[in-house]
């Protein structure tokens, strides 16, 4: 016997969206499967890697740890919402500095990095690294990612 679904309504990247989901479904699955926004990745499914980072009501969260019901009525930004007509300055800096290799961590890095820039939490390299400590990358060794973040903060390529 399955239980009742709920009508989940939220604003995703500026657009009103809704889906019929189980209340304990992971927000990550709702994003990927119901909203078909597959930029948000599943790395660990345990809150460790940050590949599923999204900005939910102004907070950086791991979508794999949020039950759908707790996102009811909220406003969410995913990696798909970061670029306008052009790539965002952070996205451009990732390109310029080679901040992506296999790219699996990149959506999470971009979302977390955007959050850090918007909350002015990237004063220096140490702060940048601390801010990104919940986002794991198995390829780059982080230097180029941190470089990109600092460059975007300083408004240089």
């Amino acid at each position, binding site marked *: *016997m*399955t*239980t*009742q679904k709920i009508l989940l309504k939220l604003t995703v990247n500026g657009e009103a969206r809704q889906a019929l*989901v*189980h*209340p*304990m*479904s*992971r927000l990550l699955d709702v994003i990927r499967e119901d909203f078909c926004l597959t930029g948000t990745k599943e790395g660990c*499914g*345990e*809150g*460790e890697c*940050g590949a599923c*980072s999204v900005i939910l009501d102004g*907070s*950086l*969260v*791991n979508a*794999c*740890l*949020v*039950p*759908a*019901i*707790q996102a009811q009525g909220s406003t969410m930004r995913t990696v798909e919402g970061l670029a306008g007509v052009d790539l965002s300055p952070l996205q451009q800096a990732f390109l310029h500095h080679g901040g992506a290799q296999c790219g699996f961590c990149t959506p999470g890095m971009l979302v*977390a990095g955007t*959050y850090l820039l918007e909350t002015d939490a990237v004063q220096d390299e140490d702060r940048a690294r*601390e*801010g990104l*400590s*919940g*986002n794991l990358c198995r390829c780059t060794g982080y230097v180029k990612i941190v470089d990109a973040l600092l460059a975007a903060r300083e408004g240089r390529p």
Partner: protein
Amino acid sequence: MRGQPSLCEVLTPLNLAEALALLAAHPEARPLAGGTDLMVPFAAGRLPDRLFLNLWDLEELRGIVVTDGEVTLGALTLFREIAAHPLLQREFPNLVRSAMVTGALAIQSRGSLGGNIANGSPAADTPPSLLAYGAELELTSLRGSRWVPYADFHTGYKRSLLAPDELITRIRLSRMGEGGFHYFRKVGTRQAQAIAKVSLAAWARVADGRIQDLRLALGSVAPMPIRAKGTERILQGQAIRNLPLDAALAALQADISPIDDLRSSAAFRRKVAGNLLVDMLRGLAPT
């Protein structure tokens, strides 16, 4: 196996009174705060619960209230809010530091103080600080509410005073003014998001060159977070220029009962706990 959301129901009360009534009617419902502990075993199919009580919307459980004598934190206070609170930074720096080392930013944005306590992990980061500050907990059910010393709350591994129909509603700290001695240190595998192998928090007041008050607490060295009361007794009243270090270290070894597990060995934990005590006392009595 994966979690099975299709078999689960969630009760979402809009206020505390409703939450307590639901919990009284369904004491088997598992409270769900930020989900940073629960969602991991849930998604892996390791959580037996099928009915949840969603606390996330309960405004009564949020907020930090400061009065002349006390600071009271709602159980849903998030680590991020603790870390950013100027008065807590000044008067309860151990709590702030322990909140700042609890996972990374995304965990601090969802993880709650009440969840950290209720989860009952011996390795949790805020409990030693709360013990060192002599915190009290408010436990509330439809039957009423009671304040208990946090030092009495954990009664064994993942066991506590919390009845099935009760929620942790608030956490209270007595303000002790500025100028006391505060020490918090967590030893883990790496800086970010590592679970503690050993952590130690202390608060002390020194007057006339002697330790007047001391509370010392540790994580990951017993089935639950503990006060090191034997060690406290040895050090209480002693002159800081002439502390009985050997006796204190021996008392500490009697206060703790670490085990071997995946993260570390009992012998290593005993060694590190002793080193942290020495480090703490060095800070208390700088030469």
